[in-house]
């Protein structure tokens, strides 16, 4: 019962954040100087045509009225028309979201899977050379711009070594697998197209690495410091006194506790990766939502800008929400604490 209370309370807290974000971005996008509508129609359009399109899009109304109209539209699936593609922004985003999600999820999996062993090794060898190497690697990892890492990876692995493809989601001439989940890795396996799977996977390696390096560094350092905290606890001493093998104590008991507290950062990273995929998608010509967002910004395509920001914002808030739910589930003190 109290868990459901906690869940509801936490859900209620997320709502004002999403509303606030939508209001904020809506106002920002409506005060755009210059005239996006004229930009979209081109210099030959008459003043009448510009005014007509503005009236059609409701841009002649006061901003609060426009906001309410827009909100009603959003609920009904009408996210406004993109000035660049002339489609409903929602369908534009839905078409591009799976590519971004596939990249972000794979990046997160890759970052966490590598972070765990490295973090445990660094934490159990505190101040040893492994710890120093991990500390410096981590600082490099968060200090290098992701888009630049992406370019350097291209120079090394594509141009010089010729090992991996330069850009895109699939090689030229490879047909996308039959659409089931929109994720190429999953769809190709479902269809039994192993060649397509390998091709899609090789296209993901460099973007995932470039995008995930900073997350890998953060999670690794967090697991390290949590492992160090765990080491001081009595149960570890007891387990060691019983003569349990070190590996068992480290990976089974300590890591479980250390990982629980790393959950927050992992959850937060999902939102951050979604927001940071922009630059990496541009470098790898990844056909995702982020690239759509950047083009929308360059063309002042305001409905598309709002749509992309809202989707990323909701993704971010939901990730936090899910993390809190897991947290409350794993640690009763959290859900009972602030009642």
């Amino acid at each position: 019962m109290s868990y459901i209370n906690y869940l509801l309370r936490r859900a209620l807290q997320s709502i004002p954040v999403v509303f606030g974000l939508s209001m904020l971005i809506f106002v920002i996008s409506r005060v755009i100087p210059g005239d996006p509508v004229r930009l979209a129609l081109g210099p030959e359009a008459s003043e009448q045509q510009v005014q007509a399109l503005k009236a059609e899009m409701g841009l002649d109304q006061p901003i609060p009225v426009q906001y309410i109209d827009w909100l009603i539209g959003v609920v009904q699936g009408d996210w406004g028309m993109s000035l660049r593609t002339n489609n409903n922004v929602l369908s534009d985003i839905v078409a591009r979201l799976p590519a971004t999600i596939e990249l972000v999820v794979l990046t997160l999996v890759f970052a966490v899977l590598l972070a765990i062993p490295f973090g445990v090794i660094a934490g159990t060898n505190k101040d040893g050379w492994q710890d120093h190497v991990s500390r410096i690697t981590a600082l490099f990892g968060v200090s290098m711009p992701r888009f630049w890492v992406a370019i350097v990876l291209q120079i090394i692995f594509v141009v010089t070594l010729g090992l991996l493809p330069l850009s895109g989601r699939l090689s030229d001439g490879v047909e996308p697998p039959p659409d089931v989940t929109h994720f190429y890795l999953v769809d190709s396996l479902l269809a039994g197209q192993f060649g397509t799977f390998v091709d899609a996977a090789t296209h993901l390696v460099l973007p995932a690495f470039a995008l995930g390096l900073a997350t890998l560094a953060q999670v690794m350092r967090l697991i390290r410091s949590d492992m160090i905290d765990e080491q001081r606890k009595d149960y570890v001493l007891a387990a060691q006194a019983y003569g349990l093998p070190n590996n068992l104590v480290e990976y089974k008991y300590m890591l479980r506790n250390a990982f629980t507290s790393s959950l927050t950062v992992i959850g937060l990273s999902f939102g951050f990766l979604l927001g940071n995929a922009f630059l990496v998608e541009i470098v790898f010509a990844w056909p995702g939502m982020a690239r759509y967002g950047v083009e929308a910004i360059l063309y002042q395509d305001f409905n598309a800008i709002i749509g992309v920001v809202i989707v990323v914002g909701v993704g971010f808030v939901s990730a936090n929400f899910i993390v809190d739910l897991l947290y409350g589930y794993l640690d009763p003190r959290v859900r009972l604490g602030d009642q």
Partner: protein
Amino acid sequence: MNMATEKSNTRLPSTEDTAQQERFKQIKRTFQSFLQNTLSVVGLLMILTLVFAATFAPFIAPYPDDAGAGVHFDRASQPPSLEHPMGTDTTGRDIFSRVLFGARLSLMMGVIVLSIAISIGVTLGLIAGYIGGKTNSIIMRITDIFLAIPPTLLAMAVVAATGASLFNVMVAIAFSWWSWYARLTQGEVLSIKEEEFIESSQALGSNWLRTTFKEVLPNVLSPITVKATLDMGFVILVGAGLSFLGLGAQPPTPTWGAMIAQGRNYVTTFWWIAVFPGLAISFAVLGFNFIGDGLRDAFDVEVN
């Protein structure tokens, strides 16, 4: 500190003086522990180098005119050599010279963005904490919204609305960056309001402005210093990202991000155009991270 010693010469040491001396000792200890950390000293040297290079860019740069829109097709796209340590770009400009001038822009941007963000954050935090009640909840709800948005995304949206320029990028990043500082300051005001010595100092007629400067600000100073040092690096990264997308200062301004964007079109032929400006960004951010890490350990504060 001079004032404290002067005062103690003229009258008996009061509690205020010993408090100041205690604070001085604490600063000294912090400073010593900072200097014992190899990485933080390395970071300090890196940033001093960078500041030096930025300040004297016109004198150090072998081809200072190349910071602008110079065109020298006779020496276009040359690989690194003694003459051009980082090579030349496709219009023959010396990349090393441009990287030096880029350091000015990046450092300036970091300082300006954080000054604005910290001023807004601290002011709002103080207002929320002191007035309390409805004002507090409104300000803190807004802060929560800003905390929940990735800064890159919000900054991009703001630049999209205001147009691409260096000034707009700085305002946009500052606009999306203040929330953490507001949260910190508000928390500090709330916790200090409860303390007995504040009640007593207010009973003695001390006004809230004095309390703020004497009690609240010194307490938030160390976390803000640590966070701001680390943030210098992150602001430089976000700024580089925005100018990489063409949302920052417009050509021919030599921002590091824009230089990488130019080089990206030539990864298959002229790798040095994109690689060296990125090394400069990494160098700067790494330096600030080294210092920030050292400061965090020395001050023994948790940020984030």
